[in-house]
């Protein structure tokens, strides 16, 4: 056992802190304060990515040869911690954490050369075309079809829950190229280099929090080049499964959760308890906050074991356990935030939530985001495979251990 961070990591932390204290613009900081989702406000998140990229820090987890930092896992964790501590907007995950790492692992040399630099620089943004109206948790039953036509595919069908598609200029997607065999075997993974192909129609969906984060995308005889295919035709399921691992595991999520606990604790100091005095001094509140924080700390310990390379990360259930813990803790944090804000959560404040708006919040910044954050966070147990699907996968490992 060895938990020492060592003095060189402390000086690294100071170097990171010095940069993070000065580099973000006021708009980027405002976006961080008004982030109510896994997806920070688009424009400022991209602006922050460009600043980090100029410093070489946009993709800490990527291999150095593709523009990563070469940092150790401990350094990456410290970086994530310092970013959350300053409440900076998280970088958008689709490119840097999903399609980028997937291309590094499975893309052709040409695909890597073409796409990776643009992903890093923030000049392109990729939306994920996986789910369909009739293929959610049962993703492999997807029907959006691509028919071969010379050097192209012709796509017909639709995709849904394509996050930020209305801001995106690229799309990675799964299409059905064979309807005859097992449903997993007729799927192909495609990279689309435009989102404005003739016949492509993107329609934003207003979410529970009042904002268009998700979209629906319709394909009517959309012709795309075959050069965008990753892996072999009909082998897209293995590409998708590989990418899912990046989506579900290997993150540093506990710093954000712990930061929110600190915000809750602060907010409770100035919130009146209905029994008199400050809510922060209410024994029931203290107990419940402590229970939530303790559970987050156990998750943090789980994350620390994972980044240390503990054998548990080789358990097939690891990505699903990570996703389930993280998503459900986020939801409990969001509930605790609304509990502190109480009746202040009731006013609808869409304008005040918009970055750069001149409409002031009706209460505190904390009150402003509590309800939208709660509403948006309902999605965490639904996306990336519902938590019911994750529990199926976890249970399979408990049962398989005995077969």
């Amino acid at each position: 056992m060895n938990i020492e961070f060592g003095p060189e990591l402390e000086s690294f932390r100071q170097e990171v802190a010095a940069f993070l204290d000065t580099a973000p613009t006021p708009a980027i900081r405002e976006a961080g304060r008004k982030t109510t989702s896994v997806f920070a406000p688009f424009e400022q998140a991209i602006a922050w990515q460009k600043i980090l990229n100029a410093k070489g820090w946009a993709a800490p987890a990527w291999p150095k040869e593709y523009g990563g930092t070469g940092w150790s896992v401990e350094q990456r964790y410290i970086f994530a911690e310092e970013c959350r501590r300053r409440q900076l907007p998280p970088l958008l995950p689709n490119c840097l954490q999903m399609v980028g790492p997937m291309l590094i692992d499975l893309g052709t040399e040409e695909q890597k050369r073409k796409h990776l630099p643009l992903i890093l620089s923030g000049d392109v943004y990729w939306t994920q075309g996986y789910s369909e109206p009739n293929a959610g948790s049962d993703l492999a039953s997807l029907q959006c079809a691509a028919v071969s036509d010379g050097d192209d595919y012709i796509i017909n069908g639709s995709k849904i829950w394509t996050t930020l598609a209305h801001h995106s200029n690229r799309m990675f997607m799964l299409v059905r190229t064979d309807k005859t065999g097992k449903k997993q075997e007729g799927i192909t993974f495609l990279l689309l280099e435009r989102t404005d192909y003739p016949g492509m129609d993107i329609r934003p969906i207003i979410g529970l929090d009042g904002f268009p984060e998700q979209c629906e995308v319709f394909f009517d005889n959309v012709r795309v080049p075959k050069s965008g295919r990753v892996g072999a035709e009909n082998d897209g399921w293995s590409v998708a499964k590989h990418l899912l691992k990046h989506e579900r595991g290997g993150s540093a999520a506990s710093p954000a959760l712990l930061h929110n606990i600190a915000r809750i604790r602060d907010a409770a100091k100035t919130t009146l308890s209905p029994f008199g005095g400050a809510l922060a001094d209410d024994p029931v509140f203290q107990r419940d906050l402590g229970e939530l924080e303790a559970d987050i700390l156990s998750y943090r310990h789980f994350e620390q074991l994972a980044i240390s390379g503990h054998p548990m990360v080789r358990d097939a259930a690891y990505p699903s356990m990570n996703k389930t813990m993280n998503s459900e803790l986020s939801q409990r944090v969001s509930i605790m935030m609304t509990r502190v804000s109480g009746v202040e959560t009731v006013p609808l404040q869409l304008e005040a939530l918009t970055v750069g708006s001149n409409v002031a919040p009706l209460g505190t910044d904390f009150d402003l985001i509590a309800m939208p954050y709660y509403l948006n966070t309902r999605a965490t147990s639904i996306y990336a495979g519902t938590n019911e699907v994750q529990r199926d996968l976890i249970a399979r490992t408990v049962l398989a251990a005995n077969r």
Partner: protein
Amino acid sequence: MDFLFTEEQTMLRDSVARYLDKTYDFDARQALLRSEAPYSKAAWSQFAELGVLALPFPEDVGGLGGSVTDLVPVAEVFGAHLTVEPWAFALTLAGGALTAAGNHAAARKHLADLVSGTRIGAFAYDEHRGIAAPAQIAMTATPSGDGFVLNGEKRLVFGAAEAGFMVVAARAAGQAGDAQGLVLLLVDPRAAGITMTPFRTQDGRSAAHVRFDKVGVAGADVLAKDAHDLIAKLISDAILVLAAEAVGAMTALLRITGAYATTRKQFGVAIGTFQTVAHRLADMKIAHAKAYASLMYSTALAEAGRLTARDVSVLKAQVGKMGRSIAEAAVQTHGGVGMTDELSVGHYLKRVLAFEAMFGAPDYHFRKIGSSAA
């Protein structure tokens, strides 16, 4: 960073596991519980033989010069076998108090006996309805000459009736709630004025409530004054080792319940194919992963000398809460047969519940965490 045990730690764990696999299976444990014996003397000698009893003690009393964190990997194995011997209490609490007394003649002698396995030690700490923190100790040690006179009652003293020596935590000044005024005293369990009410615990251990009626303690038997921080340290050590036992029990429960859900058939299929059952298994595994991670992380912190009171609260509360949820889920998954004394699952339930109740229940620790920023 790494959270792995060393080769030596793993070797000792494996040899303890081999011994217990051979001699301490569930049936052997059931037979032991049905006998009059408070615990297995044969097992105790073997623990001494294997070096477990010597592990955390200094070499000049026959110890191996290790630390409490070295006990964690073996404690997991003890927990998986639901051993009833009072080793965790004797080593971390009674033995820890003697070690901290340093060059104290009587302490040295008892420590050597503890290491060799010739006698066990008990630690009298708990009082009415449990003590979550040392400052709440109320039982009085009235100063008398250079020693003290003990009056009052200590409860749930593990191994008290079998102990060759007893360390008593008592209050020489102030009142319950004060950190000041606590002492640790070495007492002969057979001294005049001591009355014991021995009993078996729900989870199969031997313990006693101990009454003290004008029990004199000589100055030479005072182990520590201003003992609050020392007692807190001993409790923290005990929590770490008992949490490791509980996690070992939880690991066993997950394995046993997974196996049962795979083989038990109802409606013509294995019950693990029902999603409600499968998801309960998934929740057990998630709870186990959290408890295990907190145990490993806390062990690494303890080894680095950086385990704070807040960290201990997290470990105690989380392992207690997760242990209960896993064990209750295990009983439910086993159905009717899970309700019987014949099956191990109920015994595991009782072991983790005992852990949950001791040294402050989860509610206490959660409130401690919630009322103080990190």
